[in-house]
């Protein structure tokens, strides 16, 4: 197998037949192969089973309000998560501006976030936009994470997840997203 026969042929001089001494050396190649295969397997499985996570901070639900700052309503953008992986977003206060129906992804929410972010920055002298995410009862967990992901991609640090208001649910219903 791994050893070449270097004994140089079988010339028996003198005619005496001697019994060949069998080598005590065992070929370990196959064993090493197997060991390394298993090592590779265990290395891969250990790294795969480590779970990864994103950190999430929710606003304090304390009844006593403290250290709260008033922010301009024109600086806030609200994202409503509806059903069928669709969203609605609007700037400012609910009911005052007409919401835009959008979807997730590069040309949907991300584009809206970048455009609105730039607009707010230009209008408010460099102050960043504040985003509120309001998941409705018809949205799913993937939508929720995807919305947070878009905020992470567009680099919007100030955001919060808050409960949806009845007026916003009505609006989602009107647009068939609830």
């Amino acid at each position: 197998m791994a050893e070449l026969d270097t004994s140089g042929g079988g010339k028996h001089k003198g005619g005496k037949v001697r019994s060949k001494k069998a080598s005590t050396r065992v070929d370990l190649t196959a064993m090493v192969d197997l060991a390394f295969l298993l090592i590779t397997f265990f290395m891969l499985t250990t790294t795969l089973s480590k779970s990864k996570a994103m950190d999430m901070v929710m606003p304090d639900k304390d009844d006593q309000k403290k250290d709260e700052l008033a922010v301009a309503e024109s600086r806030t953008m609200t994202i409503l998560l509806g059903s069928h992986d669709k969203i609605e977003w609007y700037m400012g206060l609910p009911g005052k501006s007409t919401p835009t129906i959008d979807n997730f992804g590069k040309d949907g929410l991300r584009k809206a976030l970048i455009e609105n972010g730039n607009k707010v920055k230009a209008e408010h002298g460099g102050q960043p936009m504040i985003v509120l995410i309001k998941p409705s009862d018809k949205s799913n967990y993937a939508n929720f994470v995807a919305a947070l992901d878009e905020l992470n991609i567009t680099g919007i640090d100030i955001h919060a997840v808050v409960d949806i208001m009845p007026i916003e649910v009505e609006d989602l219903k009107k647009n068939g997203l609830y």
Partner: protein
Amino acid sequence: MPRVKIARKSTATDMTAMCDVAFLLLTFFILTSKFKTADPVPVDIPGYTKTVVLPEDNIATLTIGQGKVFFGVEGIPIRKQMLEEVGKIYSITFTPEETNTFVTMPTFGMPIAQLKGYLSMDPDKRKEIQQPGIPTDSVSNELFNWIKQARVADVVLNQKALRITIKGDARQEYPTIKTVIATLQKQKVNKFSLITALKAAPK
């Protein structure tokens, strides 16, 4: 002139040392590896572009799927203490055998009233039973007590703040997630982690 004969050397290398090293490493990886524990419900975790690797210990996981909530915490001493304390709240005492069965379960989802019966069951029978999840409704928010006692146990035993993670199914409707988050916020846990798969960042 006699021909110069080059001595033929054996091409065989000594594999013994290599074999030793290989098996040493193999033993190391076998002992250190921890296999993924099976989830009680199929969970398809959503993707996120920026993730951190979670620590292995000092962690509690809330698995959410099919509208059910399951709870698990790392560390056998913490589980033992938690079971004892939650049992006290609902005035249920668990036998040492039931406690031993409980600490071996990585995650569970039984209402406290049925937990004792579930733990004293035959191991084969226990596997067949679909766990209904921990009740989270406002009438009997058992999840609140479980999380609370797990956190208390971690502070008592390890002097550390327990890190709470949520492992949610992507198709899970939001109301269940909302109740779980509300339960956490009720005990002032405003910071937690969501288990996500790493997604490639868009260009």
